[in-house]
């Protein structure tokens, strides 16, 4: 059984010019993370390089390793599992969070979120595309010609 941990998430939004009055939102939650995978890291992406996937500038972030293959039955987000993904584009070009192609194992599929330099995200993810093992991988990919980005991420799964 996977170990349970708690992650406290905070989102603060404010703006003085979006509406006629100042907007301030402060929201926080404690999420019980009891899924198989908990990962964090910082990656430097380069659109001129084939890092470890079939798509230039893309890196797989769900397998706990540098290879996009070795799918097996123990890596990737399982079916009927929720996950929260935190992204922070520290610098560089716009970077996409992409999921595995439903029809081709270990192939980069649809873009599901995009963050520009300086932007961040806290994304509840519920996979809709799965490979032959009923699991899915997530990838980060930098977009553009001869561009780079530095992105940090955290992925934590919930069993339901």
């Amino acid at each position, binding site marked *: 059984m996977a170990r349970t941990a708690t992650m406290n998430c*905070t989102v603060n939004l404010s703006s003085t010019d979006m509406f006629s009055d100042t907007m301030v939102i402060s929201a926080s939650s404690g999420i019980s993370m009891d899924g198989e995978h908990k990962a964090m890291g910082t990656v430097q992406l380069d659109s001129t390089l084939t890092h470890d996937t079939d798509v230039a500038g893309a890196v797989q972030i769900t397998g706990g390793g540098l290879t996009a293959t070795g799918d097996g039955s123990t890596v990737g987000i399982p079916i009927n599992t929720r996950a929260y993904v935190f992204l922070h584009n520290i610098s560089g070009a716009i970077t996409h969070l992409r999921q595995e192609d439903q029809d081709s194992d270990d192939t980069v599929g649809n873009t599901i979120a995009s963050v520009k330099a300086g932007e*961040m995200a806290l994304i509840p993810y519920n996979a809709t595309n799965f490979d032959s093992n009923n699991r899915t991988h997530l990838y980060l990919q930098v977009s553009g010609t001869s561009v780079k980005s530095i992105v940090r991420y955290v992925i934590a799964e919930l069993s339901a």
Partner: protein
Amino acid sequence: MATLTTTVGLTSTDLFGDNLSLTASGSITISGASNALQNHSITTANYVLNPVAVQADSRGYLFVRHRGGDTEDQLLKIVVTSTVFGTMASGEVALIPLGDRSGTITYSAIASAGTCEVEFGVFEVTNT
């Protein structure tokens, strides 16, 4: 144009072997017509969060706070262009940047059962 100042923080004492403490802050330039902040009771019927779709070549930043349902285990499904993208439990918050450069984007939400109280905002961001 307007500026949305955002901060996202993650903390945990037991997620990894060492304490986790991440904070990211930045300013997001908001543009476009699809900016709104609301609170709504969402049922099992599909509820469109942005009646004015986010334009092609833009992204929408979607803020969602699941404030609770009729019962504790009611989940809120976030739907993007007819596909369930994420599922949130009561009390959870999210800040989601979603883009589809091939067309306009409509977000919606559906309660897994009964009614969920949901606070949400949709903010449009130009990609370039």
